[in-house]
């Protein structure tokens, strides 16, 4: 008579299955972890007409080191949901520059129709505050007429 199990007797009492009853708890735990740890930027987006550019590239900097500076077509400048008169921009940006350990990147989100005098005045204020790393926020052109290099 052949021996069952090829001579090996299974005496182990340990279950060979992964316990599945706690799987739901694990999944909900993960769900809640991701929900809680997601930090949202509280700043409201402002409505501007974006300029487009083909050379648009991603900013290689941590999110918390980027400050948005909105320039409306009528010359209003908003930083962190606050209307800032242009001569005050350096006073607002300078503490942010220090707080980010001099790694601040100012993303200028200008309206495409904003006269350049406002953009220039803002640039001079940023230079005064020492925040020389600037990005002109643009949208990638939808119609790709030239081939990508």
């Amino acid at each position: 008579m052949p021996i069952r199990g090829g001579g090996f007797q299974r005496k182990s009492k340990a279950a060979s299955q992964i316990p599945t009853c706690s799987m739901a708890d694990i999944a909900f735990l993960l769900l809640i972890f991701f929900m809680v740890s997601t930090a949202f930027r509280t700043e409201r987006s402002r409505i501007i007409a974006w300029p487009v550019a083909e050379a648009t590239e991603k900013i290689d900097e941590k999110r918390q080191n980027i400050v948005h500076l909105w320039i409306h077509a009528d010359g209003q400048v908003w930083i962190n949901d606050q209307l800032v008169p242009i001569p005050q921009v350096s006073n607002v940006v300078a503490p942010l520059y220090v707080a980010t350990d001099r790694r601040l990147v100012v993303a200028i989100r200008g309206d495409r129709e904003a006269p350049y005098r406002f953009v220039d005045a803002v640039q001079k204020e940023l230079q005064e505050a020492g925040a020389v790393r600037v990005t002109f926020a643009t949208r990638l052109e939808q119609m790709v007429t030239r081939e990508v290099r």
Partner: protein
Amino acid sequence: MALLNPKSKVSSDIPDASMADIAFLLLIFFLTTTVFNEEKGLPIVLPEAAEEVAVSQRNVLHIIIQPNGIVEIKRGESVQVQQVRPADVEAIWRQDVAANPNLIAAVKTHPDAPYRFMVDVLDALQSAGAERISLQILEG
């Protein structure tokens, strides 16, 4: 006798065997639908305050942006003015930088010119690989 049949086969428990599947489904749904708004743009480093660098006029390509979007190109001290469209700046830069690798693009924008023309020119210059760009306002 009693109207309620105690032998009903319908289970009174909420089925919890599929709870894990539901939770993972939610997890995967939220993971995939989260869109990070990426920061995109044209980077440039402004000169430090009060930093004046004397540059030979030979190495400067003046790019003057007028309010109507016409771009005027002036090479160094030459009085000759070439009127082009913002998109043509790329070809001009490529051609000129091949002749003079030390070339600096001085973008001078008229105060009344819309911001987008400056972005167009900056886009053209960065598309052409220009790194030495100076942004100024047109005076006088």
